[in-house]
C-alpha cells in the first residue's frame, strides 16, 4: 500500500475534523488529507507500526495538524516523539487546540512546534484560520522536501 499524504490531521473530535476538512475543501486542498482520531494511531501511522505496519509512504506528510487533548496519547506526547525522531523531525507540525493555556504553548515551542494556533470559538474565524494554515503550509511554505 503506497500513498501520498499532504496533510495529516490528528483530531479526536469528529466535529472539528469535519469542519477542518470542509474548510480545506473550500480551497481544494482536501485531496490528500488523512484524519486519525488519536495519538497512538498517529504514531503508528508515522512510524509504520500496528495496523499501519504495511504502510509505505512515498513521502512524509507536508504538514501535521495536531490537537493536544486526546485520549491515550496526547498531542504533546505525539509532538515530542515526532521531533525526537530524525525520520520525522523535519515535518512541519501545527498545534491546533482549544486550549490557550500558557503551559501548553510554552511546552510546544520547547519541543519545536512550527506553529501554535488556538482554535477560534466561532465557526467563521475557525474556517478562516484553517484556510490560512492550509494555504501557508502547503502552498507558500518551502520545506526541505
Amino acid at each position, binding site marked *: 500500500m503506497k500513498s501520498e499524504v499532504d496533510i495529516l490531521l490528528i483530531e479526536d*473530535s469528529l*466535529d472539528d475534523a469535519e469542519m477542518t476538512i470542509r474548510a480545506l475543501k473550500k480551497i481544494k486542498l482536501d485531496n490528500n488529507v488523512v484524519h486519525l482520531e488519536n495519538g497512538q494511531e498517529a504514531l503508528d501511522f508515522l512510524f509504520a507500526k500496528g495496523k499501519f505496519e504495511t504502510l509505505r509512504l512515498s513521502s512524509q506528510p507536508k504538514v501535521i495538524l495536531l490537537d493536544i487533548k486526546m485520549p491515550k496519547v496526547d498531542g504533546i506526547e505525539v509532538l515530542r516523539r515526532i521531533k525526537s525522531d530524525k525520520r520525522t523531525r523535519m515535518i512541519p507540525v501545527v498545534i491546533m487546540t*482549544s486550549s*490557550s493555556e500558557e503551559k501548553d504553548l510554552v511546552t510546544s515551542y520547547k519541543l519545536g512546534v512550527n506553529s501554535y494556533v488556538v482554535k477560534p470559538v*466561532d*465557526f467563521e474565524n475557525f474556517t478562516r484560520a484553517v484556510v490560512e494554515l492550509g494555504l501557508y503550509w502547503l502552498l507558500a511554505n518551502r520545506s526541505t522536501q
Partner: protein
Amino acid sequence: MGSTTLQKKGEKRFSLKDLSIQKRLPLLICILLLCVIIAFGLTSYIGVKKAALEMGRERIKTLSEQLSSMFGQAAKDLTSGTHTVANQPPIKNYVLNGGRGPDTAALPVLQKLQLDSSWILVELYNAQWKPLLRTGATELKLNKNLDSVISFSSPGPDSCKIGKLVQVGDSIYYAIVAAVTDHKQFIGYLVRWRLQKATAKAIAQFSELLGSDVILLVGNADGTLWSDMNKVVSAPPLDTKPKDGFFEYATPKGGQATSTIRPIAFTPWFLLIEVPQQRLLEAANRFRNWILILGSILLIAGIFAAWLMSRNITKPLKTLTAAAATIASGDYSASVEIGRSDELGKLAGAFNTMAQQVGNARYNLEKIVEERTTQLQKANKELEAFSYSVSHDLRAPLRSISGFAMILKEDYVARLDPEANRLTDKIITNAKMMGRLIDDLISFSKMGRTEIDRQIVDMKKLVESCVAETLQREGENKCQTEIHPLPACYGDQNLIKQVWMNLISNAVKYSSKNPVPRVEIGCTESDDKHTYYVRDNGVGFDMKYAHKLFGVFQRLHSQKEFEGTGLGLALAKRIINQHNGDIWSEASTGEGAVFYFSLPKSKLP
C-alpha cells in the same frame, strides 16, 4: 522649618536615662566618692592647716624668745665688761686729770677694748661729753650723733647702756656707753663703737637653725632702723609701731608671712623673726597633696570597681540581648548560659524557656503553613485543571453548535423557510455570546494567577490604538472622540490595554443611542498618582447601582438594550487592583458616565 528642627535637635539635653547602666553606675559611684573625698579632705585640710599655723607660731615664739635671751645675755656681758673697764684706775685717773696727764696708762686700756676689727672706735669723754681720748677709726664722725643714739638724760651711777643702731654710709654701728664714776659721781663716759656685722659662720648657723627662708631682723625699738645684722633693710610692712607680739602681713615679694617681734633685754632693740606662711603650711600642704593622691587613687579604684560590678550586671544582659537578636533573626536554637542563680540567672532561665517555646510554636506553625500550602497548591492545581477543562471542553461543543448552524445556513439557506433561518441565526448569535463569555471567564480567572509584567506603557499611543480598534469593530464612525494628553504609566501593557478596551468599548457602546455620541479620554494628576478617565454622553446609570458595577456578572442594562457578558468591568477592576490602583465611576441616568482609574506614580526604572 528646617532650622526649627535643627534647634530642637540642639536642645536635646543630657539625661541620665540615656546612659547605659554600665556607664551610669560608675558615674554615680564616682560622684559619691568625689563628694566624700572633697568633704573629708577639705575639713581635715582646714584642721591641719590651723594646727600647722598654731604650731608654727609656737615655734617662732620659742625661737624668738631663745634668740632674744641669747642676745640679751650677750648685751649684758658686754655692758658689764665695759663698765668694769671704765672704772679701772688708769681710766679713772685720766678722766680725773681732765685728760691733761700722760695717756700712757689709759690708752693701752682703751686699745685693749678693741677686741677685733668690729670694735671700730673707743672714746673717753668727760662728764660734759668733751672728748678726752680716742683710739681706732677716729675719722668716723660717730660722736656727732651720740645724743640721739643714747639718751643719758638721767644717768644713774654705775650705769652702762647700749645705744640705738646708727647708720653711717653702708654700715651700721652701735655704741656701748659706760659711765666712769668716782665716789658715786659722774666723771666721764667710756664709749665703745662697734660695727654690726655678723660673720658668715654666724649667718650659716642662723639659717641652719631657722631655715633658709626665715628672716631675722634686728631694729631700733622706735622703728627708725631695721637691719639684717649686716646692712640696713627696709622696715617690715607692719601696720603699727613695732611691739611685742605676732604680726601677719603680705611681704613685698608676694605671699603671706607670719612674724614675731620681741624686745632684746639691755638694749633699745627689737628682734623680728619673719617666716613665710608657705613654710608653716608645708606640712599641711604635704598632707593636702597626700589627700589628693589618695583621693584620686580611691576614685579610680572606685570607678574601676563600679565598672567591673556594672559589667558583671550588664554582661549577662548583653548576652541576653544578643540571644534575643539571634531569635529575632530567625534562629531559635539560641540559648543563654549565664551560670548564676541570682535575678539575672532566673531571667536567663525564663528566656531560654521562652525561646524554646517560641521555637516550638514556630516549628508547629511552619508545619501547619507547609500543610496548608500543600493543600492550597493542590486546590490551585485542581482549579487550573478545571479552568483548562472549561476552556477546552466547553469551547469544542460550542464551536460545533455554531459551526454546524453556520453550515446549515450556508448549505441549506434556500431550502429553509424564513422562520427556520431566523432560529438558525439565534443559535449562531447565542453560541457566539457564550464563546465570548467563556473567553472573559478564562481571562478573569487567569488574572489572579499570572504575574504582571511591568514596563513603561505609552498611554497616549495605547489609547489611540484601542479607540481605532473599537471604532473599526463597531463599524460606525459617527462617534466623536477626543483624546487629551496622557502621561505614561508603569504596568503590564497587555492588561492595561484590556482595561482601556473595556472602558472605551463600553463608552462607545452606551453612547451609541445618542444622536451625537461623544467620548472624551484624559488624565488628571495628583501628588502620588495619575487618574485616567473615559467620559461619554451615553445613557449613564443610576448612582445607587454604582457599587454593583464592578461585580462579576453584574449588568445594569438588559442584553436586548446593550449586549455584554457582565465580566468586563470586573476584569478591569481586578487588573487595576493588581496594579495597586483604584477604579470607580460617576454617572446619572441619561446624562452619560465617567469611568476613572488611578495608577500610582511609581518610580520609573
